[in-house]
């Protein structure tokens, strides 16, 4: 295996260091200049040198919530194109949601996804198993068999749909305790969101679009944290979108309930005012909310109430978005822009430093999903899963350059800061100078 010397990068945004990688492992970190030539006894000879002054070195990012669409909707994304997009965005591991066709509700399907991830070589893919058969919310899927499979599934979710039956949710929470699993809930009370197309409020009233009330999310979260407490299990809440949800999670944590939560980059930046354009690129589940919600979500991510940023990368082909609002698919791609949005909304606002970003986008998601080898410190002896970011970069988002098969980004034409210059997966550069290797 080859050696890589990253010279002068600010590790987690701290002091400039040199980091030497040999094979799949970080073998040394030292003050700038010490590895390269003297003092450590380690030789950087033969190493590929990455000059990284002014850049931030982070542990490889981990996305707990990605839709790779394979099997079944390969016109939107495949494991290969999705993992290429992930690498471009600085990710070294992604958790692939179960709402594929067929649904990932058996050991066979999750092993297929896991194997495709292995073959892709750009990013580790950890499949998420469905909680219920066919995402129908009626009968538990073979949770244990999926955990026992080669994929070693640890996260279970019917994402895209809510496990709205309280008994099924309770049983799932109880059952996964046997193997340390976690249920990731898409909190959406179905009756309260029938016909819903956007956040319920001032804008929906004007536009005549079906309203998606905040309470539809909050009531399920409230129920589920209480269920988790009752059965002594852990629950993870997907894509929080309202200030009220934040308050419930904050209360649950203060009570000692084992709950974790995620927020998407787009819910940290965009509001329902954008829906006035009726441009389906802004149609997403849960919907874009108000400025008040956005500020509450940022605050909660900063203070740790919300544990992680997860992309909810949801690729769709052009024709599924180039239509009237009501007919459009919900979701937006996010892997390739996530870090930039987090830099803009959290770092440049002073709410998080880069160490905080490392926690919310690598350490914590790896911990929640039990992703072996990811979310580890940037120190000697650790797996060389790393991301290098140039925070001074400013660029206008052009989806034509995306590695994802789909282009449904809400950021087209918008200037965003930061750029992933290098992504390293177990010692191999998957992105070099901003381009896929």
């Amino acid at each position: 295996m080859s050696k890589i010397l990253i010279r002068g990068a600010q590790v987690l945004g701290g002091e400039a260091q040199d980091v030497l990688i040999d094979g799949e492992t970080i073998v040394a970190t030292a003050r700038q200049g010490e590895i390269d030539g003297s003092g450590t006894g380690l030789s950087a000879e033969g190493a590929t040198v990455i000059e990284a002054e002014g850049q931030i070195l982070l542990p490889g990012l981990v996305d707990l919530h990605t839709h790779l669409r394979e099997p079944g909707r390969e016109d939107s994304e495949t494991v290969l194109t999705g993992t290429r997009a992930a690498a471009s965005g600085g990710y070294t591991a992604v958790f692939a949601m179960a709402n594929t066709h067929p649904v990932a509700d058996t050991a066979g399907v999750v092993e297929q996804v896991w194997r495709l991830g292995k073959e892709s070589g750009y990013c580790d893919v950890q499949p998420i198993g469905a909680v219920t058969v066919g995402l129908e919310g009626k009968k538990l899927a073979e949770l244990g068999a999926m955990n026992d499979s080669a994929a070693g599934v640890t996260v279970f979710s019917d994402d895209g749909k809510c496990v709205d039956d309280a008994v099924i949710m309770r049983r799932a929470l109880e059952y996964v305790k046997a193997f340390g699993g976690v249920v990731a809930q898409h909190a959406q009370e179905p009756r309260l969101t029938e016909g819903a197309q956007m956040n319920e409020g001032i804008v929906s009233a004007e536009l005549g679009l079906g309203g998606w009330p905040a309470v539809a999310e909050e009531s399920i979260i409230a129920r589920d944290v209480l269920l988790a407490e009752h059965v002594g299990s852990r629950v993870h809440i997907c894509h929080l979108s309202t200030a009220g949800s934040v308050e419930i999670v904050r209360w649950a944590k203060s009570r000692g309930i084992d709950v974790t939560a995620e927020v998407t980059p787009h819910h940290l930046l965009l509001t329902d005012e954008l829906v006035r354009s009726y441009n389906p690129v802004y149609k997403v589940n849960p919907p874009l909310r108000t400025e008040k919600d956005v500020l509450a979500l940022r605050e909660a991510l900063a203070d740790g109430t919300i544990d992680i940023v997860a992309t909810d990368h949801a690729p769709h082909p052009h024709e599924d978005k180039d239509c009237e609002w009501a007919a459009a698919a919900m979701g937006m791609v996010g892997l390739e822009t996530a870090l930039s949005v987090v830099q803009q909304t959290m770092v440049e606002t002073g709410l998080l430093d880069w160490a905080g970003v490392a926690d919310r986008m690598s350490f914590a998601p790896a911990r929640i999903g039990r992703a072996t080898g990811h979310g580890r410190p940037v120190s000697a002896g650790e797996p060389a899963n790393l991301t290098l970011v140039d925070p001074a970069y400013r660029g206008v988002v052009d989806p034509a350059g995306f590695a994802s098969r789909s282009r449904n980004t809400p950021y087209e034409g918008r200037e965003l800061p930061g750029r992933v210059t290098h992504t390293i997966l177990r010692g191999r550069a998957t992105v070099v100078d901003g381009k896929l290797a």
Partner: protein
Amino acid sequence: MMRHLISAADLTRDDAVLILDTAEEMARVADRPIKKLPTLRGRTICNLFFEDSTRTRISFEAAEKRLSADVINFAAKGSSVSKGESLKDTAQTLEAMGVDAVVIRHGASGAPYRLATSGWIDAPVVNAGDGTHQHPTQALLDAFTMRRRLVGRDEGLGKDLNGRRITLVGDVLHSRVARSNVDLLHTLGAEVTLVAPPTLVPVGVETWPCEISYDLDSVLPKSDAVMMLRVQRERMNAAFFPTEREYSRRYGLDGDRMAKMPEHAIVMHPGPMVRGMEITAEVADSDRCTVIEQVANGVSIRMAVLYLLLGGNDSAATAPSTTRTEESK
């Protein structure tokens, strides 16, 4: 004058008054033996109806034919749309066929806006009702009817509805007519009150330029016009209100309630009416009820809108006169 007519909220006071004044001129055409102007001769207008509608489609068609336009009627049922063709594909087909304007009715809120702004088609777009969003020509014909009745046919020219008190009653939540009317009537200076059970008032309504009341009886004596909205029977099971009977008792307009209105006040309805529930036959058939006038006025308004979008930007006072001159040549 704007390029498209998508929302009543897009109209300025001057735009709206221009349309009303132009419609007044157009209405004179209806009084003639030959109800036709040559204004849009050689222009092709497509009525693109993705949602069932009888009166609105016929009204537009009558308006278009009175302006001598060539008319294409497109109904989505039984068309390529039912085979899965998208709005974009349909629009581009019409563009390729060279239509000069598209009148669109669609079940999805925002569909006309997308059609007008997505570059799928260049022609002007007139919204003939989209989902629960807007129905601007309905609002214009309602305002036209109110101005005629409350201000006067000739006295109203150049005037708005400043200070008039208008009450809209019923299913505001699902009503594009209510949204359009609130926007336009406010622009025209009227004071608007919405009366409905709380379940049929949209969350977020507090920013609308109107008052909200749950008590019809208290509002009636202060109303110059009361517009009853259609309650969709199919929504009855969604628990918006307990029973038809209870709705009728609290929000229906009968003779006793009409008696509480000022003598000059009128009763309106965009149709189709649910007699016995929203409005009793006694009220619907009274002289104060303007339903039939509203239908007639709809043609004049739609003629005015199409004329102004396609025919020219002359002032209302002169434009149709010019066309009359042309006709007499």
